[in-house]
């Protein structure tokens, strides 16, 4: 009996051990077990899928590098507008614009250019070489447009061609090419016209049925143009569609869930034979660049898609995207890349377009072939990461410029704006110790304010680097900027540009002298009973407007004190309470902003004040304006606002010297001098700032000392119902801005948590439920807890 029991125990133990081993083997082994057939198992995929944050940007950067070279196709004429691969062959659509002799370019509107487009279709080997001309449209005999290039299952190139008949309208055809001529395979005119909604994409499936997608419908037509499938997707929109490697129909649906205020993205896979939906997968395609960006797959990936930052391969069975090419790591400008054709996972051909060129006559396009670079060859390149909440093209251009200027370091962007919750992801990365080398300090770092970042030791003091550097000096900066960024001799943030953050009012009413206190403003407001203070007269908005610029007047972070029970704050609440509960956006027949100023119905303009706003103020206030500043206890209420190009070096970076090499460029005369004409804000260097101001005043065309072409300001633009006439700035306008600048008292910073508490508690006072004396102690109590916690 005892023996039997022992045997039973051993058997159970062995069985359990077996189950554990099998379970452990199964865990996380999707890759090797997926695929079903050996042909669909990817041979070599990156180890990480998408959205890996800082860790991916740093450790995987070398895996996403592709190197580009000119793709030589001799004999092809014009600008490439479509490219498809079939087997070893490429089919390409080129177009050339032939301008009429009598066409006139008046310089202002190039839309008046007349002419005719010549379409050419070529085939070539996927290795390049000689292009074989398959079709060339005759400008005298071809009145229409070729809008798409497709390859049929049997390898026949097909085009979608719409021709215009002067008497009978527009006809749509799917044509093949025979002996250099187009041959209509099917007339789809009725099909196009019968759909009340525009068809967004057309392609042929493996059975040669025509698949069409509208904004939220998928339709399939047989060879006789008979509708055989119609799928309605309801309140969604189709962003991408195409075929998988196995021939299934793919549709990517986007929708917006209002309840959680979040966008949803799904990939629907329809069976190639039955057209029934066989899979619905959550797939984040944010950033995918339009309908053409879904590309047919191969034996490694079911399909490919591109965004402005990267190319991804997708494996349906794993429900996973794999990043293949990172444009920035590869020194590619993603915005200039178009008509990508994947040859395989390691190689693609694309057109590199120069959008600055004349778009009517055809943009300049260079055919490029990009091949994956062996990561081991990049082992000597140190990757630096630049984490940002908002990556604009100028920053990307700067990084590309830096990366291509040397081979020792490569800056890689970690773009948190691609995350569902950018601020939370950044905080999570910091919490996990995944630090970037450089951080964009755009009003702080996500949810981490600049002060918090400094107090936590997240940012490196750059003062020693500046001191040692012969190229830059703090004395080069505009004094107000220097005062703002230098704190106790330490510099944690630098920026190439700035704006003022202040209040502008009517000089004859608010007084010429910059700065005022709360009592002054209250008195002024009370003297204008028919006027509102700001753009919005909503009570909460007024309180928010005050708090953006005044909150630091009521908080003493150092001593853990706050003064929201003071008379000054009560004055603010009382002024806000004179507003309305109505939301500004919903006010019908709202008086336009310029009219509000002209008619004296609005007293102040608040927020960011770039120099370019002076011309608006000039007209709205009829020249009678001044940068007064937010009310404050010390009569100094203007701030320096650093925008998205403000940055700091992470104290944990292992490559601080390299990071400094990149960061310092923004403080050099060379950078700011060359770039300032393209910047919306003012340069931070005094020498460049002076040149910038001179360029604004220029009355004659010329060249500045940095070689930038200077043109006198002219033209006009609309500000709601007011026409703003642009002209060179006057000394008076410049002086108003300079005076505002001289009266700044530091960097703009606000605290969203304090603002949230104020809004929550003031609501009861604004609703009339509580008196000001009941509300103020609660605000004081709650904010004090917050301040003490962070003391």
């Amino acid at each position, binding site marked *: 009996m005892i023996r039997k029991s022992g045997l039973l125990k051993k058997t159970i133990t062995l069985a359990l051990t077996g189950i554990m081993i099998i379970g452990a083997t199964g865990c996380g082994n999707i890759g090797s077990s997926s695929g079903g057939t050996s042909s669909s198992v990817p041979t070599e995929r990156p180890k990480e899928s998408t959205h890996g944050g800082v860790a991916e940007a740093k450790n995987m950067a070398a895996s996403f590098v592709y190197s580009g070279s000119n793709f030589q196709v001799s004999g092809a004429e014009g600008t490439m507008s479509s490219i498809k691969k079939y087997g070893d062959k490429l089919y390409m659509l080129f177009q050339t614009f032939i301008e009429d002799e009598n066409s006139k370019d008046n310089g202002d509107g190039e839309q008046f250019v007349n002419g005719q487009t010549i379409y050419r279709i070529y085939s070539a080997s996927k290795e390049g070489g000689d292009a074989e001309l398959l079709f060339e449209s005759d400008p005298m005999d071809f009145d229409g447009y070729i809008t798409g290039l497709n390859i049929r299952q049997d390898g026949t190139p097909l085009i979608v061609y719409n021709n215009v008949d002067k008497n009978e309208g527009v006809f749509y055809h799917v044509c093949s090419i025979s002996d250099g001529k187009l041959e209509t395979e099917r007339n789809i005119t009725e099909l196009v016209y019968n759909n009340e909604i525009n068809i967004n994409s057309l392609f042929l499936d493996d059975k040669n049925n025509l698949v069409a997608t509208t904004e939220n419908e998928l339709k399939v037509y047989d060879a006789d143009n008979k509708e055989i499938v119609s799928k309605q997707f309801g309140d969604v929109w189709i962003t991408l569609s195409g075929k998988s490697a196995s021939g299934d129909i793919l549709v990517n649906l986007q929708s917006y869930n209002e309840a959680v205020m979040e966008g949803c993205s799904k990939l629907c896979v329809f069976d190639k034979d039955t057209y029934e939906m066989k899979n619905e997968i959550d797939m984040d395609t944010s950033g995918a660049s339009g309908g053409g960006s879904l590309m047919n797959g191969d034996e490694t990936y079911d399909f490919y898609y591109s965004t402005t930052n990267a190319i991804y391969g997708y494996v349906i069975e794993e429900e996973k995207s794999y990043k293949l090419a990172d444009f920035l790591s590869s020194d590619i400008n993603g915005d200039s890349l178009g008509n990508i054709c994947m040859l395989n996972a390691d190689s693609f051909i694309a057109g590199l377009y120069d959008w600055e060129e004349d778009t009517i006559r055809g943009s300049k396009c260079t055919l490029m072939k990009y091949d994956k670079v062996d990561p081991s060859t990049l082992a000597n390149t140190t990757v630096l990461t630049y984490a940002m909440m908002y990556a604009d093209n100028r920053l990307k251009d700067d990084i590309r410029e830096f990366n291509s200027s040397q081979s020792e370091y490569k800056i890689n962007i970690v773009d948190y704006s691609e995350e569902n919750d950018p601020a939370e992801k950044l905080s999570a990365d910091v919490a996990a110790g995944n630090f970037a080398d450089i951080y964009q300090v755009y009003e702080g770092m996500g949810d981490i304010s600049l002060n918090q970042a400094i107090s936590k030791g997240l940012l490196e003091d750059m003062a020693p680097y500046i001191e040692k550097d012969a190229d830059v000096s703090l004395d080069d900066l505009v004094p107000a900027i220097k005062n703002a960024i230098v704190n106790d001799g330490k510099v944690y943030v630098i920026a190439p540009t700035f704006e003022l953050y202040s209040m502008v009012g009517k000089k004859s009413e608010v007084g010429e002298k910059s700065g005022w206190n709360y009592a002054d403003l209250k008195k002024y407001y009370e003297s204008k009973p028919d006027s509102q203070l700001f753009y919005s007269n909503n009570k909460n908005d007024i309180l928010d407007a005050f708090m953006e610029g005044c909150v630091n007047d009521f908080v003493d972070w150092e001593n853990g004190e706050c003064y929201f029970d003071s008379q000054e704050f009560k004055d603010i609440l009382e002024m806000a309470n004179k507003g309305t509960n109505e939301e500004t956006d919903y006010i019908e027949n709202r008086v336009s902003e310029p009219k509000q100023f002209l008619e004296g119905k609005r007293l102040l303009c608040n927020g960011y004040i770039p120099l370019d706003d002076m011309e608006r103020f000039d007209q709205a206030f009829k020249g009678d304006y001044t940068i007064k500043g937010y009310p404050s206890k010390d009569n100094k209420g203007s701030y320096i606002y650093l925008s998205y190009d403000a940055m700091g070096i992470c104290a944990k970076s292992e490559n601080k010297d390299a990071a400094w090499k990149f960061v310092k460029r923004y403080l050099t005369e060379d950078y700011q001098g060359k770039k300032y004409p393209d910047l919306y804000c003012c340069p931070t260097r005094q020498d460049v700032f002076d040149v910038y101001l001179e360029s604004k005043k220029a009355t004659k065309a010329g060249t500045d000392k940095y070689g930038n072409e200077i043109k006198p300001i002219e033209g006009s633009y609309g500000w709601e119902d007011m026409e703003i006439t642009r002209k060179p700035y006057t000394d008076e306008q410049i002086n108003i801005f300079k005076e505002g600048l001289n009266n700044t008292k530091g960097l703009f910073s606000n605290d969203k948590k304090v603002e949230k508490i104020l809004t929550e508690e003031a609501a009861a006072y604004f609703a009339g439920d509580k008196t000001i004396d009941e509300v103020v102690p609660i605000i004081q*109590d709650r904010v004090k*807890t917050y301040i003490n916690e962070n003391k």
Partner: protein
Amino acid sequence: MKISKKKIKDSIFLGPSLLGVLIFFIIPFFVVIYYSGIDNVIQCRPVGLRNYINVINNSAFQGAARNTFIFSLMAVPLSIIISLGMSLVLEGGIPMKSTIRTFFLSPLMVPTASVVLIWQVLFDYHGVINEAAKLFGQRPVDWLKSDYSQWVVVILFLWKNLGYNMVLFMSALASIPKDILEVSRLDGAGAWKQFWLIKLRYITPTIYFVGIISLINSFKVFREVYLLAGDYPYDSLYMLQHFMNNTFRNLDYQKLSSAAIIMCIVMIVIIGLLFVLENKLSEDLEG
């Protein structure tokens, strides 16, 4: 040295659990101790006891500790006394005993979010209680932003926990030997004497257990307070877990770690004292 087969077998079975405890409890515990001794997670410079001194001197921490202590001091004894009283009443054989027991146990089944919603409906400035008060000409009270706020949470705590404690006490009372109670009654002991001299002695371990559980639950009341009043509530509702939660969100791990260790030490002292007290009472019972 020969290791017996049994030991190897035991180790194999114990291994996974030990590994889990090591990864999820022991290592993080030492990480917390390490964090409490450095200036920040970036530079990691040792600062000795500076973080502890800063936390102890931090008025938000002091306020949170005071509030948590006051709350526990109010809620735990009340919870023990009321649930014990109720179990004694139910033990007396009142009608609908089972229904009443179910009624008091039902709050345990209600999700916290729903409980909070009910409390908001009741105690909001425009809630049921204030509307009722207005009918009698009374001024509305901002229950969650006034000195009454902690009482609101105490009531919520009691409502949620009384049923469970009551069942524990009923079970303890049922396990008292009936012959002792019979003998005491024959000796002329009244209900009060029976309770004080016999029942209380027998249920001391249960009181101790209920006390510990209630103390732990009183620390966990943060969840309800957070849902009711947010991360920065009115002063008297700001608990130790608010401090911890907010410092974590602000990535202030040094403050968080120091506070956690201080709290841990205080908890060890309190539970140790309760142990001593329980031992003393048990000795008394056995002696």
